[in-house]
């Protein structure tokens, strides 16, 4: 065969090309960041560390100490207001939720729907109180407090509104309703965001819900995989079909600085476009602090990454990677497949041995995926057959503690119990 024939062979392999998803704009943006890092990054280079960094800390969150979760009581807080006042004609939609003082200083109404920045009537003010906020009516009386369940009348109009927290990705709700409001302190959810102080605060499996102001909950790549951020021990990885190779050490320094092992990772999203994804899905390079909110009611634990100016860059919810854990085989599957790309849900697990897996592996020993390093293991060593689902793909995989998993089959439809002997050979 000539060189041309070999080239033709390669050409055959290239025949069914996938759609081109290369994003030149994003590449240029990333290239610019590299330039900046190079120019200003002598310290970065020598330390080979800090990427997501810096401090908790603008006015609302000084950098250290237990009493630094908010400004002193009575400190004036800026809130957005409209020109509406009692007696004016107004909108009559009803909004209900918990009034939350976000770490960026914005008062929002949080509910099952996307949270909304509350725009208060003319003359309303707010002050810091007990680490939260008190909203004062035009007459100076307290009309609402953060942490309360509250009902407000009004609508989503931005006519005549002014003040902070406007113009961002969070929708607004303009109150056209005079106090007293229907408030229920007894059912209020604390809903407090607390600064990340250690890696333990970050441990978990996280799915992004908002990145750069774009709702990405449920956004998947072309293979149906969601981006999953996993923090275990002292490692952080972003896993999906595109950036599953990102795996870095992570630590949280005194003062809340989150430090990653290199500048190449992205803690917020892949540095590229996907359907439903921000055009330039990179916010990690600008992230400066992390905050978590404890689970409450039906709400899972949440994680937020913020820029130095308090801008919300990314928001995540914690998910359990799998609920199948009632045997040693299940635990082995969970542990092994936790390292696989994407969010993996183990649905079936069966115990087996390394030797049994090797016997089921077809193909010459020098090319079989299981040949190395499974071939070097003790045949009696414990292994497991695992049926799992990642996105819309089901797989049956053999796992063991000391070798990479070996996928035996994959399908777009559910695969069931692999059985004690493993998957059937067609």
């Amino acid at each position, binding site marked *: 065969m000539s060189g041309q024939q070999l080239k033709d062979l390669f050409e055959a392999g290239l025949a069914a090309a996938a759609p081109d998803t290369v994003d030149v704009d994003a590449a*240029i943006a990333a*290239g610019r960041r590299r330039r900046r890092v190079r120019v200003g990054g002598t310290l970065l280079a020598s330390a080979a560390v800090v990427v997501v960094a810096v401090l908790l800390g603008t006015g609302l969150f000084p950098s250290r100490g237990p009493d630094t979760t908010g400004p002193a009581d009575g400190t004036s807080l800026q809130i957005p207001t409209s020109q509406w006042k009692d007696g004016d004609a107004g909108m009559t939609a009803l909004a209900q939720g918990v009034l939350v003082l976000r770490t960026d200083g914005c008062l929002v109404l949080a509910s099952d729907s996307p949270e909304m920045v509350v725009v208060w009537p003319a003359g309303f003010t707010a002050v810091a109180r007990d680490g939260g906020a008190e909203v004062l009516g035009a007459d100076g009386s307290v009309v609402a407090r953060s942490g309360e369940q509250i009902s407000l009348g009004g609508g989503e109009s931005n006519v005549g509104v002014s003040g902070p927290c406007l113009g961002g990705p969070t929708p607004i709700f303009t109150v056209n309703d005079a106090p007293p409001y229907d408030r229920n302190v007894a059912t209020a959810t604390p809903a407090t965001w607390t600064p990340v102080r250690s890696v333990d605060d970050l441990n978990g499996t996280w799915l992004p819900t908002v990145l750069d102001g774009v709702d990405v909950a449920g956004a998947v790549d072309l293979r149906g995989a969601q981006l999953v951020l996993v923090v275990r021990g002292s490692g952080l990885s972003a896993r999906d079909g595109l950036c599953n190779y990102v795996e870095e050490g992570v630590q949280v320094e005194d003062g809340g600085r989150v430090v990653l092992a290199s500048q190449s990772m992205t803690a917020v999203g892949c540095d590229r476009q996907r359907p439903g994804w921000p055009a330039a899905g990179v916010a990690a390079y600008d992230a400066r602090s992390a905050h978590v909110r404890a689970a409450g009611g039906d709400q899972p634990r949440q994680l937020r990454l913020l820029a130095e100016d308090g801008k919300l860059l990314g928001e995540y919810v914690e998910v359990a990677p799998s609920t199948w854990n009632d045997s040693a085989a299940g635990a082995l599957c969970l542990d092994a497949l936790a390292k696989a790309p994407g969010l993996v849900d183990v649905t079936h697990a069966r115990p087996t041995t390394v030797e049994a897996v090797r016997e089921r592996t077809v193909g010459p020993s020098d090319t079989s995926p299981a040949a190395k390093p499974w071939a070097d293991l003790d045949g009696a060593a414990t292994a497991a057959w695992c049926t799992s689902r990642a996105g819309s793909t089901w797989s049956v995989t053999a796992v063991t503690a000391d070798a990479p998993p070996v996928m035996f089959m994959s399908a*777009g439809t559910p695969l069931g119990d692999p059985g004690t002997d493993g998957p059937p050979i067609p």
Partner: protein
Amino acid sequence: MSAGESDFRGWAAESRADLRRTAYLLCGDWYLADDLVQETLARMFSVWDRVTRGGPPDAYARKVLVNLALDHRRRPSRREAPTEVLPERISAAESSYVEGDGPAVIAALQDVPSGQRAVLVLRYWEDRSIEETARLLGTSEGNVKSQASRGLATLRSALAQRGITAELEVEAT
């Protein structure tokens, strides 16, 4: 937009398709290939002025791309990913495997060790000379020859296992 950025965009538009194909042959996964190309473009842009002062940027881009592909395969977490080559299938209707020689060729190519594969791709897909291939890979011409020879032998065997007979007696040395 600066003149440099404009030049870069023009070059990227012309080169991306070739870069994607080369990346795919190197890694066997279109999505990863796009990632590699994206990263290559980012790195190229970050040094664009310097690179273009030294002449056409294509060779440097290939060097970046190949290094990224090789580096990716060396990353520890890369070894944690399930294999992309499925040794068994359940049925044609359910399996994710695509019928046809194309995927088999790519799968066979992935059986070739990454260093040898890079030589094969640069030499026989990109038609680069032994000298140029050696320069891009930062190795000796003798090593390129031996890697090509071994790579062809491995590829021949891997193709045969997939029912594709190929002599592959190209001028490896």
